[in-house]
Each structure stands twice: as structure tokens, then as C-alpha cells.
């Protein structure tokens, strides 16, 4: 079973065991990971499930779609090259560990 490591904005680390094919946002919501609101429930409409994916793991995920790109331009936190919407990230079969960093909230 793959482990998703969530590095919270305050530096805390949460290791969550997920199923192969699990969604990074959904796994976080089920485990009550703070900092992922996911208001739209994964419809790529709210930009409140923003995470940074470590560079060397970026390629395991599907490419950023046009819709995701539009939303990434609306994130309220800092937009980086590693930015993704966690609701669009599925853990591929065969991957056993992924780390995502949660952004520092900004108003």
C-alpha cells in the first residue's frame, strides 16, 4: 500500500497509507489533513486543494489539463512550478511513496 506524506505548512509531517489508485485530495480529506479544504469536492473549480509536488515525482502524475491550469492561476497561495491541484492527482499502481508539501496560507 502506498504512503502519501503530507508536509504541513507548519512543518508537521503526516504519513497516510493509501490504496493504489488513490486520489491525493480524497486521501487527505478522509484523514483530516489540515490545510486542504477541497470545497468543490474535486471538480477542479475551487483551487482550495493546492499542493506542491516534489520535482522528481512530478512525472508520475498525469499532465496538467487546461482546466487545472486555469485554476492554478487562481490559487491564493504562492504559485510555483511544482504547484498542482491535489484533486487531480492519482497515485499510479507501483508507486509506493509520494510527498506533497502544503502551501503556506495567504490572505
Amino acid at each position, binding site marked *: 500500500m502506498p504512503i502519501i506524506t503530507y508536509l504541513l505548512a507548519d512543518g508537521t509531517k503526516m504519513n497516510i497509507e493509501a490504496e493504489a489508485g488513490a486520489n491525493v485530495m480524497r486521501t487527505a480529506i478522509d484523514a483530516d489533513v489540515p490545510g486542504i479544504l*477541497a470545497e468543490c*469536492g474535486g*471538480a*477542479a473549480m*475551487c483551487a482550495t486543494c493546492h499542493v506542491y509536488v516534489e520535482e522528481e515525482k512530478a512525472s508520475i502524475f498525469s499532465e496538467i*489539463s*487546461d482546466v487545472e491550469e486555469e485554476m492554478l492561476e487562481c490559487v491564493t497561495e504562492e504559485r510555483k512550478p511544482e504547484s498542482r491541484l491535489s484533486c487531480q492527482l492519482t497515485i499510479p499502481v507501483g508507486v509506493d511513496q509520494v510527498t506533497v508539501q502544503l502551501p503556506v496560507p495567504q490572505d
Partner: protein
Amino acid sequence: MKFTQPPEGEYEKHIVPVKGVSSLNFDPYAAEVLTNPYPHYEELREAGPIVWLERYGVYVVSHYNTVRDVLTNPDVFCSSAGVGLSNFHTEKPWRQPSIILEADQPEHTGVRAVFARILSPRALKKLTTTFEAEAETMIDRMLENGECDGVVDLAHAFPIKVFGDAVGIMNEGREHLLPYGDMVFNAFGPVNGRFKECLANLGPATEWIYEACKRENLTDDGFGAAFYAAADAGEITHEGAGLLVRTTLSAGLDTTIFTMGNALVNLGRHPDQWAILRDEPKRARAALEEVLRYDSTFHSFYRTTTREIELEGVKLDKNQKVLVLVASANRDPRHWTEPDKFDVTRKATGNMGFGAGIHGCAGQMIARMEGEIVLRTLATKVETIELLGEPSLHFNNTVRGYTSMPMRITAKKH
């Protein structure tokens, strides 16, 4: 508007195609069901995660997990055959299909990206102050009168004004928007008495909408103009831009109007919940979410199978319509604790009142913004809400809401 009940008696019985699945003579569109659907949905959930509806020859899914599975597998459960009962792959659509709601990937993706950009959270921020000022004016006026109608004076008046302006449609004739939307949402169900009567009373609404969606009749700074600008840039066709304005008007008004009405009615009926919101107006957004879960606006729509598929142990044929009962999923005790309790402090995110997956409501951010502003302004200014009689329920095949809610409100003392 007055609606007749659909005939309950005779119907052509469709025989269930496979053994071992419950087959019911349940009519989700019967007036009795629409009056209070929730006990009926509970029976349906108890009959199984997937049930055959003899009357319509469709399957219905009503459990939270099954509904989510269907909505998040658009390659198998598609939208291009229409999201209503009628199958566009075998019957002629009653109007030109929407290029976003009734489209599949890959065509859907590009159109949705345009829509997402034009109604993005960032674009909406600019509208906040205008929306807030309008909500204050309307609520102040209601407070001056004391006795008012929550649906007519606020739930209806607010979106017609602010959303109509945001899209950039003409002022004259906006009263046609609601009858048009009423027809669109009836059309997702069967051609029953209710739908026929709605069509008969429609008047010039369709022609008015057609005119309102034309570029020359739109303001040059609204969403409508932005759709046409996307067409100039080659992202969609000009015809597509007009269709997107139409979709915005048909999908974006009745839904928000009914949702705000449902919020007011449920807060009026649960004074303890109103008190929680009134004491902490910042709970408005979460309260709206609970309204969408507890008393969903868009109750049901369809998907169509693109191939043979097994769902909850039942083998479905290709081209089979499946009724997706999101309002039941939102009350499923397999997912929610005390689902029949209206609780504004609940974490109701994950409800499927806006659908789910790639077709999840593309207007949900502006809908949330409108609802939040109205509820927050109300909670900031109003002390008590007292219902004066029963609110009048509106009967529509697929959306649930009220046409009138006489009430008395008093101002907070500062």
C-alpha cells in the same frame, strides 16, 4: 404558475433486463414524491444500491458511494446522450445540446477550461462589493417592511439582479428567465403532464432567451461578452459562445434562486440553526453547504453507459440510462451521521449538490458567493425570522424549491 399532477395510473411496464436486481414501480417525478422525497429515497436506498425503475426503463443509483462512482467515471457513464431521461443517441434532442453539460471528453475539456477561466475565483473577486451592496439594500428594504416574502424579495430578486448584470443581459424581460429555466429542468425528466403544462405556459421565453444571448444584446464587460471574446480568440466557436451564454442563464438562475429559498425556508423552520448562524455570520458559507446537502436543489439527472459494464454486481447493457439521485446520496446514512438532521455546524463538504467529477457544477463558485453573501448579510442584520404560514413549494421534475415564503423579520439591535 400552476401545475397539474402527472397521471399516476397507467404506464407501460419495462421489464428488468437482468435477474437479481430489484425492480420497482417507483416514480421519482410523482407529485407525492416531490412533496417530500426523502422517505421515498430511503426506501429506494434500502432496496439496493442499484434498482430498476419499470415505469421509465432506467436504473437508479441512490447510495453515496455508487453515485460518486458513476459521476467520476465519465468514460463509461457519459453525458453526450443528454443528462435527462431522453437519449440523444437514439432520439432527437428537443434543443441543440449544451456544449459543456451535454458533451464528453475530449471536446468537453477545452470548453470547460474557457468557462473556468471566465468564472474563476479570481474573476469573481471583483464582483464581491457590488453583490454585498445589493444584498444590503434588499435586506434593509425588507427590514423596513417587517412583513415580506423571503423568496420573492430576496432569493428571487437577488440573483435576477446581480447574476443577470454579471452575465450582462438586458434588463427588459428578465421575467422570462425563470419560466425558461423551469422548462429546461422539467425537460430532464419525462414528458409528463407537468412538463406539458410548463411548455404550454411558456410564452415568448425561448425567443427572449435566444435574443438575450446574442452578442449585440450583451453588455461589453460581462461573462457573456467574455465568452464571445474567447470565440474571437479561437478557443470556441461563435455559435458555441452563444450556447454558453444560454447554458449560463438556464443553469445559473433557477438553481441559485431555489437554493437561497431552500436556505431561508430551512432556517425559518429550524430557529435553533438560525440562531447559530445569526450569532456567527461567518458560518454563512458552511451553512449554505449544509442546505445543499440537506435539501439539494438539483435532485436528479442521468448518465448513459458507453459500453457493457458491471455496477454493484449488476451487468448493464451499452446505451442504458442511469438516473443519478444526488439528493439521496446527500442523505445516505452509509456516508453521513444523522443525515436527516439539518445542522449548520456540520462539515457538509463532499456533498454532491453540485454534482461531482469532470461535470461538477462549473458555476459553483459564483453560486456559493451569492449564497454566502445573502446569508451573511442576513445574519448580520436580522434578529428573528418568523414564518407566516407554509411556504409554497414549486413542482418541477428535477429541481426543488419554493415560489413564496411569507415571513416577518426583525432587525438586530446594535
